């Protein structure tokens, strides 16, 4: 193979003109959805409705319909919460960290990944709130003046979580919207429908593509990226504090924050690849979301997969090295106890299968990467299950040990969260530009001045 490493590969393949880029991205919004779209939408809405039904039952009859019971009080709701928050991390990573690292290839996938962040955090937010049993009283989680003169406990990781996740959602949303403003303006100026034009005008805020504005706009992007980067690390760190600040063996470890963050990026990238493979095919965006993009994401999956594998090994090492009996027991119990099946699903999906990405052919083969990233999604869900359930089901007191079994309602609500996620993704693909038009235009060939008079253009 001969690759010229002195030249950066073009971010937009096929030498598209600016007008062609815009045409490609705007086409899903300009055309009426076809039959396949409605089939996909009806499947995901059905899943959503199944989840909503099971949720309504659990609200009416109480959370006793779930498998949660002593000693496993933190079961599916927390597993699903951590899973979805983790999925959300890829978006901010792509849009903020890769922006600061000047990875220009991020432009093609950033918008989509940011949208997935927002949708995933929405799915995540449902679970801790319904886990309280009376979600309509969720306002009590915020510090507000009340007649009991009580405040929330600011030294509790659960309150940190409330602040971290809500800040993360708000900042991701603001970041996403700021990126959308110029695209709304572009859509406003190209649409022929009066209703659409009104809607786009409202959301574009009357953006004029003015260069006196672009200066501040680019500055704000750097500032937001600079804040979002530590934020994305802090969110999963704080989520891991929910576990690490307790004294339960298997949870009380200092490796948790970096381990959780690596796992979050791992699962988030896997989800982004899963969805993008379909989106680029269905909406004919192969030139903007290229195979190079997918390959680069697969490399990140390989790296973070090994970080996660290192964390698994290090947990075992520290359990042995610390000499704490309870800690040693928990880890042996994880690998060989009643939940060994879950543990080995986790290890094989997260550590073993991603190793195939060492081969360039597999990294660039769509069917192969589909299989691996879906396995990674499964594995990362099981990672949270293993961490949460195995530690709780066998803690210090053998007399209170119990085997946790989820009920059909648990599965129904999990399914519903996938329904919500995919419904939002499907609606998003038809109503907003899935790729940032202005950012992709800016990195297209010949989009930036040559600064020598443009003699060699024309």
């Amino acid at each position: 193979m001969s690759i010229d490493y002195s030249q950066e590969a073009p971010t937009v393949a096929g030498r598209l003109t600016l007008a062609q880029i815009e045409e490609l991205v705007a086409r899903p919004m300009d055309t009426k959805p076809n039959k396949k779209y409605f089939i996909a939408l009806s499947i995901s809405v059905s899943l959503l409705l199944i989840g909503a039904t099971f949720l309504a039952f659990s609200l009416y009859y109480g959370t006793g319909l779930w498998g949660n019971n002593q000693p496993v009080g933190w079961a599916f709701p927390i597993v699903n919460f951590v899973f979805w928050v983790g999925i959300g991390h890829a978006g901010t990573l792509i849009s903020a960290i890769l922006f600061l690292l000047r990875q220009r290839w991020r432009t093609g996938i950033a918008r989509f990944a940011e949208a997935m962040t927002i949708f995933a955090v929405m799915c995540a937010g449902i679970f801790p709130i319904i886990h309280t049993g009376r979600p309509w009283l969720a306002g009590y989680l915020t510090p507000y003046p009340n007649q009991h003169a009580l405040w929330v406990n600011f030294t509790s990781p659960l309150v940190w979580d409330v602040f971290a996740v809500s800040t993360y959602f708000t900042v991701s949303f603001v970041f996403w919207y700021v990126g959308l403003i110029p695209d709304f303006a572009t859509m406003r100026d190209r649409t022929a429908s009066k209703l659409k034009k009104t809607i786009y005008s409202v959301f574009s805020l009357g953006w004029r593509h003015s260069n006196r504005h672009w200066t501040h706009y680019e500055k704000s992007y750097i500032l937001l990226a600079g804040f979002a980067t530590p934020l994305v690390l802090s969110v999963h760190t704080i989520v891991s504090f929910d576990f690490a600040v307790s004294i339960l063996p298997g949870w009380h470890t200092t490796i948790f924050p970096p381990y959780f963050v690596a796992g979050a990026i791992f699962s988030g990238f896997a989800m982004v690849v899963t969805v993008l493979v379909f989106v680029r095919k269905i909406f004919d965006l192969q030139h903007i979301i290229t195979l190079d993009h997918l390959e680069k994401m697969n490399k990140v999956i390989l790296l973070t997969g090994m970080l996660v594998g290192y964390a698994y090994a290090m947990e075992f090492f520290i359990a042995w090295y610390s000499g704490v009996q309870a800690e040693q027991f928990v880890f042996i119990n994880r690998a060989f106890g009643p939940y060994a099946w879950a543990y080995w699903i986790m290890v094989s999906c997260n550590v073993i299968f991603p190793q195939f990405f060492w081969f360039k052919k597999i990294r660039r083969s769509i069917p192969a990467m589909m299989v691996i990233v879906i396995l990674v999604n499964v594995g990362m869900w099981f990672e949270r299950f293993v961490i949460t359930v195995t530690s709780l089901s066998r803690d210090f007191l053998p007399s209170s040990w119990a085997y946790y079994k989820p009920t059909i309602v648990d599965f129904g609500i999990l399914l519903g969260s996938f329904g919500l996620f995919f419904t939002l993704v499907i609606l998003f693909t038809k109503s907003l530009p899935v790729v940032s038009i202005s950012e992709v235009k800016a990195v297209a060939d010949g989009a930036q001045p040559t600064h020598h008079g443009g003699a060699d253009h024309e």
Partner: protein
Amino acid sequence: MNSNKKIFGIAATFKTPDEIINAAKKVTNSGYVEFDVNTPYPVHGMDSAMKIKPSKLGFVTLVTGLSGAAIALLFMYWTMSVDYPLVIGGKPFFALPAFIPVTFELTVLLATVSTVIAMIALFFRLPDNKHPLHDTEYMKSVSADKYGIVIESTDAKFDEAAITDFLKKLNPLKIEIIYYPEEEAYPIFQPKFIMLLVVITLVVSGGTYLMLNKLLYITPFNWMMEQDKLNPQHSSELFSDGYGMRTPVEGTVAKGFIPYPYMGQTNPTDVLSNPFLPTKGNIELGKGKYFTYCSTCHGYFADGDSRLRGQFPNPPTLHSKRAREFSDGMIYHIITNGQNVMPSYASQITREERWAIVNYVRVLQRAKNASESDLIEMNKETGSNVTN
């Protein structure tokens, strides 16, 4: 046709980014100040070509970020250390390490949100959908793939013919004169608009009414008012007699309940003897309970001077010879069983408290009817010099 309209500016569109950079440089160097360049994405090098100063947006971020940190820390200090101090996990009231996560999150939240709001509202002066550039051919082309420059009529050097010539020399694709749009009037009293207001009013008020008066009283939102448990005085299908409440099994005594053998007798021949010594603590307890339960009718000093101003018949004084000759057990019996119009206080005052009241009544009786020897003893104890 546009002769009576006010000109906003003269616009020229170009095809390549190099041309627009060149045009921006020329316009700047010719001394125009009130002009703008519109491009579908930020073109590198435009800031120096237009001589735009670096953005000051960062200062907004700095100030609001620092305020976020300060607000978070001060608020947590005030709630956790001043307003309602609680020891949690053995941490100090001001547990700085535990306050860091929330401080960080609030810093980020305030910094980013206010940066964006400040940028849009103060730096961009948006939303502005009535700007003259909107809905022009010029705007449509720079929104897509052209690069445009517009010199505005507010510029000191503005001269329509001169600028048109000047821009023509730059070899643009097109030159467009942009006018201020006609003022559009939106009368408030349109039937459509009024209908909209009415609908919004009905939806908001109806929704609020349903939420506060109906929804909050429906299971499961009703604060767990409805519970499948046994309530006192309620029937139950669980027991064959239909009563929810149970009586103790025969021959047993409920915990903390000692039966009183003389209940219901008016003048019992036999009474209990006082099991409590009149210690200081016991008398203090008796005083408190006497003030609460007895003094309303009997008066603070047991003189029978009721504070009820005739709403309830006054009891006789407890300093009569008959009352002073009652045994402790007799006074206890009267409190427990009641006498004449005085009801039983057995359900309100515990056994120990009743005996404490008896001891306190004895104190009052002795104080009101003190003998010479009592006085000498008191003077000895307190060092005073009181005579009868």
